[in-house]
C-alpha cells in the first residue's frame, strides 16, 4: 500500500461529490458562451473558447447517467489538461458547484465495490470517505476513451464516427 496523499479539487454533480487531482486542473471558469456541435454525442456536445483555444466541453453527468439540470449561479467550468488519444489536450468539465482543494490520503479511499453502485464501475477509479460521505474519483481515461457513452446509450445511438 502506498501511503501518498493527493491534493484534489472537489466539485458537485447532481448532489454527488467528485474529486479530481488538483495537478490536472488549469483553471476554474464561470460559465462561458458555448457553441453546440451538431452531431456530437451529448457527453461532449459543445466547444468553448478558452483563451484563444477551442476546447471541448465535457458533461460528466452524461457518463454517469445523471439528470442534466439547468445551469445555476454556482455552475462552473473546470479546465483540465489530460491526454486525449495520446496527445495532451485541454478539456473543459461542467461542474454544478466547485468546492475546494483538499487532501485525500490513500487510507481513506477504497476500491470500487462491484455492486451497490448505479454507475459503470470502470468509470470510477476509487471512492474516498469523508465525514460519512463518499467522494467519487472518476477514471477520466476510461470515460474519455468510451467518449462518455454508457452501455445503454451506446446501444440506442450508434456513434457518429465513421
Amino acid at each position, binding site marked *: 500500500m502506498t501511503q501518498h496523499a493527493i491534493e484534489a479539487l472537489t466539485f458537485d454533480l447532481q448532489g454527488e461529490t467528485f474529486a479530481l487531482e488538483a495537478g490536472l486542473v488549469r483553471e476554474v471558469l464561470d460559465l462561458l*458562451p458555448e*457553441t*453546440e*456541435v*451538431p*452531431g*456530437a454525442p451529448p457527453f*461532449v456536445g459543445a*466547444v*468553448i*473558447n478558452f483563451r*484563444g*483555444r*477551442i*476546447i*471541448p466541453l*465535457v458533461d460528466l453527468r452524461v457518463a454517469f447517467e445523471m439528470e442534466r439540470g439547468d445551469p445555476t449561479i454556482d455552475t462552473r467550468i473546470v479546465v483540465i489538461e489530460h491526454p*486525449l*488519444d495520446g*496527445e495532451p*489536450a485541454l*478539456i473543459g468539465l461542467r461542474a454544478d458547484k466547485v468546492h475546494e482543494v483538499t487532501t485525500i490520503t490513500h487510507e481513506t479511499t477504497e476500491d470500487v465495490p462491484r455492486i451497490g453502485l448505479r454507475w459503470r464501475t470502470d468509470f470510477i477509479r476509487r471512492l474516498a470517505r469523508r465525514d460519512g460521505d463518499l467522494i467519487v474519483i472518476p477514471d477520466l481515461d476510461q470515460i*474519455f476513451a468510451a*467518449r462518455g457513452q454508457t452501455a445503454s446509450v451506446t446501444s440506442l445511438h450508434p456513434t*457518429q*464516427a*465513421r
Partner: protein
Amino acid sequence: MSGLDPIETFRQEAQELLEQVEQGLLDLAHRPGDRDLIDAVFRGLHTLKGSGAMFGFDALAAFTHHCETAFDRVRKGEVPATPRLVACVLSAQDHMRALAEGRPVEPGAGEALLADLHAAVEGGDAPVGAAEPAAPDARKWKIRFSLPADALVNGARPLPLLDELRDLGDCHVRVVTDDVPMLEDLVPTECHLAWEVLLTTPHGRDAIDDVFIFVIDEMTLEVEELTASRDLDNPMAEAAGSPSAVKAEKSTETAAAQDTRAAKSGETVRVPAERLDEMMDRVGELVIAQSRLKQLASSSLDTALRAVAEEIERLAAEMRDTMMVVRMVPVIQLFGRFRRLIHDLQNDTGKKIDLHIEGETTELDKTVIERLADPLVHLVRNAADHGLETPEQRLAAGKPEAGVIRLSAVQSGAEVLITITDDGRGVDRDRVRAKAEENGLITPGQVLTDNELLNLIFAPGFSTAATITNLSGRGVGMDVVKKTIEGLRGSLDITSNPGQGSVVSLRIPLTLAIIDGLLIRVGASRFVIPLANVEECVELSPAQDLRSTGRSLITLRDELVPFIRLREQFKTGSAPDPHQKIVVVSTGQDRVGLVVDQILGDHQTVIKPLSGFHADIGAFSGATILGDGGVALILDIPTLVHLGQRHDAQMRVAG
C-alpha cells in the same frame, strides 16, 4: 526548444546537400560535359564529407570520401561522366542519405557500391586528352583575390590556395596590405590581406577557378589574362600602377564588395517548421484579438480608440501576410524529387520518359507541400505506368518514342493549380466501365457523362491495373489520393482523350492556416463556409420553401440544384427565419445549396482544429473564434456536397 541539436542541424544540411548532389547528377545525365554541374556535385560531396566528419558521422565521411575521390577524376577531366558513372554515384548518394539519417544499412552495401563506382571510373577508358585541350602554350594570368574578413574564423586558409596556384605553374605573389588597419584597430582574427599573383601556366582559366572552388561564393576574385603587348617583364610595377589606376581598381573592388553584400541579402535562415507553426498560432491569436478590438471600437465614440483599432487592423493584416509569405516555399522542392522518380521509372518500365516541369517557382505553404508529396508521387507513377505506352507501341501509333510527362504549377488567386499531363494512351473508358460494374460502383448500362465515368477512377477500391506491377498496386488507390487532396481543402479532376493522354488537375489552397469565409447563422449558432467554395447566394422564397417539401431542389439558370436545410441537418430545433437564404457551394464540379437562416458577412478565419472528441464528425473541418469571442464551426463542404448528392439520389429513387 532551447538551441538546436547539432546532429539534427547536420542532418538537415546533409539532406539539402544530397538533394543538390542528386539534382546535379540528374542534370549531368543530360549534359555530361557541363563543368558547372560537375563542380557543383563535387562541391556538394566535399562539403558533406567535411561536415560529416565534423559531426561524428565517420562512416558517412569515409564513404563520401571515396565518392569524392572518384568524382575528382571527373572534375579533373581524367574520366568522362558516363551514364554508368552517374548512375553509380546516384546509388551511392542513396546510401549516403541512409547513413546521414542513421537508418540501418546492409553490411557490405557500401563496399559493393564503391566497387561498382571504381569499376565505372576505371571502365571509362575515355580519351583523357579529349576532356582536356592538348597542352597549349603557357599563358600569363594576373590574379587578384581577397577573402572576407571573417574567412579565417570560418576555416578558410589562404596558404593552401597559394600552394595550389603554385602547383599550376610559375608564380609571383605579392601581398596587398592596403586594407590592414592601424594597430589599435586591428582585430587579429580578421583577414585584411589581399594577394596579387602573376601566374604562368599551361592550364586554362578553369584550372584557376578550381583553386577557389570552395571559397568562391564569399571572396572577391579578379582574373585577367595578360597579353603579349603588356609589360610582362615588370609585372609588379604595373600592378602598383599609377594612382589613377589604383583608384580604378579600388572602385571595382567596392563594386565587388557590394555584389557580395547583395548576394548576402539573399541568404536564408534555417528555422524548424514547428517554430513557424508556433508563430503562425500567435499571429492567429493576434488576428482574433484584433477583430475583437475592431468590434469594440466600432461601437465606441472615442475617435482615438477607433484610429488605433484601424492601425492595429492594418498591422495585423500585414503581419498575417508576411507570416504567410514566410511559410511559403517554391514547389521546386516538391517537383525536384520527381526527376529522380522518372529516372528510376525509366529503368523499371523500359519506357522512355521526358519530364517537363513548369512553374517551379510557384509558392505554396510548407505544410501543404509536405502533404502533397505522396499523392503527387502516386499520380506521376500512374501516368508513367498506366498512361504512357512502351516505345514500340508509341512508334506504332505514330508518336515520338519518348513519352512526355508534364508537371506544372500556376497560382490563381488563393489557389494553386497543379497539373500532371501525359501524352500516353489515355484512359480506357470501356475498361473503367467494366471494372466499375464489376465492383458494383455502377449498374450495368447506367448512363453516365464522360466526366462521371472518368471520375469513377477516384472511387474507393477502384484500380484499372489488370496486373499489379511493382509501381502501382501498392495498396494506395486513387481514392486515397482524392481524400488527401480534399483533406487539404483542394479538389481534383481528370480529363482524358483516347490516344492523346490524360490531364489530372489539382486545385490546392495556398495555405491551410487562414481562409476567407462566409459567416452564416443557422438557428442560434453561427458557422463559417469557406469562401472559395461559395458560388452564389440566393433567396429561398416562402413559396418555394413550402412547395419544395416533397423535393429539395431549386432551379438555378435552368439547372437543378439539390439543397440541404442545415436547420434540419443540424437539428437546431428552431423555427426557420422568414427570409431564408440558400448559399450555393461547390467542390469544383458538383454543386449543392445550403439553406441558412441568415448571412452575416465575410469573415477572415484562422482555422483551429477540433479536438479528438469532434474530429470524426464529418460535417466540420475545424472551428474559428469570432470577433465577440464566440466559436463558429467551419463547414466541410466536400462532405456536405456528398450528403446532398446522396439525398438527391434518394429523392430521385423515391420520386
